[in-house]
C-alpha cells in the first residue's frame, strides 16, 4: 500500500508524534505541529495515536494511490480533491487504486493533515534541517506574507504561557494582563514574533530548549521554537507556551496579533 507523490508546492511532510530518541545529539523531536489533531485523525481512521500522516502547510500536494485506500483529513480547512472532484473533508473517503489525490490550499490556519487507514511509514529520523528533507518535499514557508485582503480572525482567547523563573523581576509587567505579540514569520522550526520592548541580556549560557520555548532574541523580537527547531539555544529564555497554545499559535495567520497570558 503506498502513495506516489507527483507534485508538492510549499511544504508537505510525513509527520507522526515527536520522537525524543536522538534529542541528546541535537536531533529535534519533530512530529506534527498539530499533535492533538493528528491523534483525532488517527482515531477516525482506526489507527494508533502515533500513526504518521501527511502534513501540508501553505501549499498543496498531489499523489497517486497505488492501492485502494481509506483516507481522511483534519486540521485547518483545506481542499481535498479525488480525480479532480472536490470531496467534503468531514468524512472518511474511499479511494480506488490509480486515483489522483490533491490536498492543500489551507485556509484560516496554516497546517492540515491527510491520513490513511494504517498510517504512513515515516523516515526513521529527521534530517539536519528538519522538515526540508525529512520527506519528499519542497521548501520552507518562512516570510510568506498573508494575502492582501485576507480577513484576519480576531483572537478571542489569550494563549497560555509560563514565564521563566529567572524573569521574576519582569513578572509585574507580564502577568498582570495579556501581552500582545504579532506573528512575523513561521516555519516548522519556529515562529518569529514582535512584541514588547524589553532590554535583555544577550549573553545567556546556552541550555536546552524545546518546542514552545519563547526566547527573547533582542528588544521587541521573540522566537517560539517549533517541532523542528534547535534543541539548545543561547537567546534569553523568556518562558514557554502551554501545549495547546503551541498548536493554536501555529494555526494563526501571519501578521496576526496574538495575546498571551503569562502566569
Amino acid at each position, binding site marked *: 500500500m503506498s502513495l506516489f507523490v507527483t507534485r508538492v508546492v510549499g511544504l508537505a511532510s510525513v509527520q507522526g508524534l*515527536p520522537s*525524543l*530518541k*536522538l*534529542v*541528546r*545529539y*541535537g*536531533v*529535534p*523531536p519533530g512530529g506534527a505541529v498539530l499533535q492533538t489533531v493528528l491523534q483525532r485523525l488517527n482515531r477516525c481512521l482506526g489507527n494508533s495515536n502515533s500513526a504518521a500522516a501527511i502534513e501540508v502547510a501553505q501549499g498543496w500536494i498531489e499523489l497517486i494511490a497505488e492501492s485502494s485506500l481509506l483516507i481522511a483529513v483534519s486540521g485547518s480547512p483545506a481542499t481535498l480533491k479525488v480525480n479532480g472532484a472536490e470531496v467534503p473533508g468531514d468524512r472518511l473517503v474511499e479511494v480506488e487504486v490509480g486515483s489522483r489525490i490533491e490536498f492543500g490550499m489551507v485556509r484560516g490556519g496554516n497546517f492540515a493533515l491527510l491520513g490513511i487507514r494504517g498510517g504512513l511509514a515515516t523516515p*526513521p*529520523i*529527521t*534530517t*539536519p*534541517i528538519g522538515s526540508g528533507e525529512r520527506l519528499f518535499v519542497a521548501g520552507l514557508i518562512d516570510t510568506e506574507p498573508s494575502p492582501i485582503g485576507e480577513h484576519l480572525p480576531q483572537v478571542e482567547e489569550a494563549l497560555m504561557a*509560563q514565564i*521563566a*523563573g529567572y524573569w521574576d523581576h519582569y513578572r509585574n509587567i507580564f502577568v498582570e494582563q495579556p501581552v500582545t505579540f504579532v506573528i512575523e514569520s513561521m516555519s516548522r522550526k519556529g515562529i518569529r514574533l514582535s512584541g514588547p520592548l524589553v532590554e535583555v541580556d544577550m*549573553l545567556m*549560557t*546556552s*541550555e*536546552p*530548549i*524545546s*518546542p*514552545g*520555548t519563547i526566547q527573547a532574541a533582542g528588544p521587541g523580537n521573540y522566537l517560539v521554537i517549533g517541532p523542528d527547531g*534547535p*534543541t*539548545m*539555544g543561547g537567546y534569553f*529564555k523568556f518562558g*514557554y507556551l*502551554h*501545549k495547546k497554545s*503551541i498548536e493554536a499559535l501555529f494555526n494563526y495567520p501571519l501578521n496576526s496579533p496574538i495575546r498571551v497570558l503569562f502566569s
Partner: protein
Amino acid sequence: MTLEKSGGSLWIVREIAGSPSDFAEWMESQNVLGVEAAVPCYESVGLWVEDSLFPEHEVRQLLKTYSGQAVNERAQKTHEIPCCYEEGLDLDAVCGILELSRDTLIEIHASTLYRVAAVGFMPGFPYLQSNAPELSGVPRLESPRIQVPAGSVAITGTQCGIYPNISPGGWRLIGRTPLAIADVQTRSFPISPGDNVRFVPISREEFASQSGKLLT
C-alpha cells in the same frame, strides 16, 4: 540542585554538583519512568520527558541523592579533527579582533584541548569548551550568515563549535574540517558530551583529499 519546568516535555536541572555530563549519565542510569533523555549542556541538564508520566516529586527526591558521582569511569575519548584554517572565512577578522597573527591563532587553537560540553543546536553540533583565554571574547556576527558551509569550525565568546551541515549561523568561522562529524541518516554521532576534541591543521590539498569522510 534545582528543577524547573521549561516546556511541555522539558525540565531543566541547574546548580548541579559535578559535571553536567556525569549527572546526565547518572540520571539516565536511574531509568525513571517518563524520562526519555537527559541532555547535558554547559551548566545545566535538560530532562526530556513524557509529560503525563513524569514523576516530579520522585525526581526531586532523587536529585537529593546525587553528590557528583560518575556512573562509570568513562574512558576519555579524544577526537582529532583535521582543520583547514585557510578555509576560515572570518580568520583574518578574528585575528584582528584578538590582535593575534594568523600563525599564532592557529598554533593556539590547534594546541588547545577542547571538552565537549554539549551536543545540540542542530544534529551533531558540538559545543566545545576550553581554557584558552587568548581565543575568548570574539563577538558573534552582527548579522548571522544565512549559509555556513558544512564542517566550519567557529568560535565566539569562550566557545568553539563545528557546524556538521550547511546552516544559518552567527559564530565566526576560523577554519573548516573536511570530515563529516555526524550523519543523521545512519544515526552516526561519534562526538558525545564529555569527549575531548583537538584540531589538527591541514592544507587545502589535504582538505580536498579527505573531503566527505566520516569521523569515526
